[in-house]
């Protein structure tokens, strides 16, 4: 049974600029927004858009991701025909290869796509926070009679040179592609989300594979080749919320934006476009009589006895008496002990912040950093962690790290 469109989700990203957070897991598996992981967004978009077949291309630290995806049931992607499949690099008769680039990752799995013989293939990125209806994108692709379409966002002109830019005519047909140019001719940034006609995708991937000089990358190789051959290429304008959470500060910022859906545009409280995730299964959260909770998101299993202000708390976080948590992202299972002060920072999963320890600080003229405490880290009593610190090892009682 042929599928109209299947998705290939690039989830091999190391996310090296997230440092401590991605030491042991791939970037798509990074927790986000209280109970999600980044990959929940593209996966939920798929099922909400009617795409029931997804290949997930993994490479870097796939253990957490594999376990998290499991049989795909939380996203309703456990299907007899189709469903979700994790596709790591594998040994072939001709030898084994790591995925060399984004295009090579898809190339090595052409036989997976073949099984479903789709008309279209959508290539997704596993490291963006975005709620997008891919069926609307496909409608656009079909209307234009396109062979290749790319989703683009308008970005401010002054930022344009940080992105891969699509130059398009008034009919949205792409005439030129500029990768991080000094002099941008367009402010349409590629979101790294593409729809290909399946025959075109196969042709260009095979051609790319045969080229020994290629970096096997969609942006640097495949798109320029398509342009060279004057393929029917179109830019699909997307104007919803989109964030590449590739850095500590952008990850922190995106979490804070979840607290203000009315202005930020990222609404997780949308019954018509639910974001699915694997559930913690914990009981409801407790807010004690002495606790204060202001403008925050609190997830199942939390026990709050201290003061929580403008923060996102993941499942099972404990905030003990007299502790203060402000402008913070605190991931699952972390304990913030009595009297600790945790501000303007990201604390990863299952960390312990000791009594009266201080982590991070509100931004000042001098320092604007987001302090980060890695998963499972123990910060001793009365320890002090500076506002720009990246804590990857335990900190003893009373010690300081800046």
């Amino acid at each position, binding site marked *: 049974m042929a599928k109209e469109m299947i998705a290939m989700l690039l989830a091999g990203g190391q996310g090296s600029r997230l440092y401590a957070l991605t030491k042991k897991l791939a970037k798509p598996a990074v927790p986000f927004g209280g109970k999600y992981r980044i990959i929940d967004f593209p996966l939920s978009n798929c099922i909400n858009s009617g795409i029931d077949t997804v290949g997930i291309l993994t490479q870097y630290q796939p253990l957490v991701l594999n376990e998290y995806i499991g049989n795909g049931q939380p996203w309703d992607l456990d299907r007899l025909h189709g469903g979700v499949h994790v596709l790591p690099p594998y040994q072939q008769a001709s030898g084994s290869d790591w995925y060399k680039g984004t295009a090579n990752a898809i190339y090595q799995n052409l036989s997976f796509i073949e099984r479903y013989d789709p008309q279209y293939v959508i290539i997704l990125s596993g490291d963006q926070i975005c709620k997008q209806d891919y069926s609307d994108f496909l409608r656009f692709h079909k209307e234009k009679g396109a062979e290749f379409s790319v989703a683009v966002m308008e970005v401010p002109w002054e930022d344009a040179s940080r992105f891969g830019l699509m130059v398009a005519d008034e009919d949205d047909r792409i005439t030129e592609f500029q990768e991080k140019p000094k002099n941008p001719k367009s402010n349409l940034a590629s979101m790294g989300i593409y729809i290909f006609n399946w025959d075109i995708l196969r042709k260009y991937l095979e051609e790319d594979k045969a080229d020994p000089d290629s970096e096997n990358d969609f942006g640097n190789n495949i798109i320029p080749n398509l342009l060279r051959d004057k393929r029917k290429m179109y830019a699909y304008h997307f104007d919803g919320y989109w964030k590449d959470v590739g850095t500590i500060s952008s990850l922190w910022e995106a979490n804070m934006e979840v607290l203000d859906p009315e202005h930020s545009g990222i609404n997780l409280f949308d019954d018509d476009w639910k*974001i699915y995730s694997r559930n913690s*299964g*914990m009981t*409801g959260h407790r807010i004690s009589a002495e606790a204060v909770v202001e403008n925050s998101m609190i997830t199942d299993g939390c026990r709050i006895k201290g003061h929580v202000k403008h923060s996102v708390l993941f499942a099972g976080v404990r905030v003990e008496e007299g502790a203060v948590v402000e402008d913070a992202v605190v991931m699952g299972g972390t304990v913030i002990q009595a009297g600790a002060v945790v501000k303007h920072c990201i604390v990863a999963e299952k960390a312990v912040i000791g009594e009266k320890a201080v982590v991070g600080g509100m931004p000042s003229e001098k320092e604007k950093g987001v302090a980060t405490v890695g998963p499972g880290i123990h910060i001793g009593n009365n320890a002090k962690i500076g506002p720009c610190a990246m804590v990857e090892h335990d900190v003893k009682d009373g010690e300081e790290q800046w």
Partner: protein
Amino acid sequence: MVNSNADALGIIFPNSYDTLVPELVGKRLMASIPFAGRYRMVDFILSSMVNSGIGNISIAVRQNYLSLMDHLGSGREWDLTRKNGGLNIVPPFAENGVKLYTGRVEAIANLLDYLRRQKEKYVVMSDSNIAVNFDFKALMDEHADNHADITMVYAEEEIPQGFLKPRIATDGMYYTLNVDADGRVRKIHINSKEPGVQKLAMNIYIMEREFLVKLFEIAFARGYSYFERDILAQHLDKMHVQAYEFCGYKARICDMQSYFRENMKLLDEKNLDGLFAGDPIYTKIRDDNPTRYINGSKASNIMAADGCVIEGEVENSILFRGVRIGKGAVVKNCVLMQDTVVEDGVKAEYVISDKNVKLTAGKEVRGAETFPVYIAKHQVV
């Protein structure tokens, strides 16, 4: 087999004691009454069985079981979607004039063919009116050590008020035990009104499957209805019925007041841990987002599940999934079930709102601690 599975199958009676909470079971049964923020009553005993390695569980439903079927689905959330065993919902089978079950005997008679074909050595049985994190493995070990025919579970407690209210004698019978020095049950009192702490049965049993089949074949042939009254209580001299005391935390629902009180008791962390600190209790997943506290909200001494949006003030309350509390609303001492909407400026005190209730802007609803106001499913105030 190389695994930790228990050599037992489970049977749950989801309709027992329905008559004690007529309001709450209007469109459901005891087992699907929402409890503790995000659970249904059946989740506790079902999860307990699963956590004890029991992977073959039958639910002998009698009536109003649509909500329970919807809740349980294929049993996936309890890890009971299995090739062998798994979850088995048994509706009443209209045969030989079997009407709606009145007691366990008819319910089990319906299951006898099935039970004969199973392989497990033991059967554990339970009602679903008690929320408890129960270790069936310990019960099985104790039962085997004592070489008893039947082991039944009790707790030391006073007879709850809900049981003492006047009603038809066979409606929700309860049992108290006389136990001898060896822990053998010597007498079973039915609907006793004895004051003070009693050995009150929790209606949790274990026996060998083949023993149960034989026992119920005879009982059914003789036209008995009630397992405890007609079989157990009458044959204590011939059968070795052992008593097993449960000392852990439990929440027994036997009227509206106890429903309210048992929810509220979970605001005490000792009690919450008593129920939840052990093995996990599973329930149906709803994919709610985390609960959001918006500027101007005030929350003190509450338990809230995911998916709530709180803009007003809430104190000493249990909020189930998806509850909304509008600006300027004041909610005190309330149990608000799934998707209750409390609009702006509402004042609510001692209210139990069922699913999808809406309190429209500015309304005031007030009950008393001993008599909370109950608002039925889908009602708009």
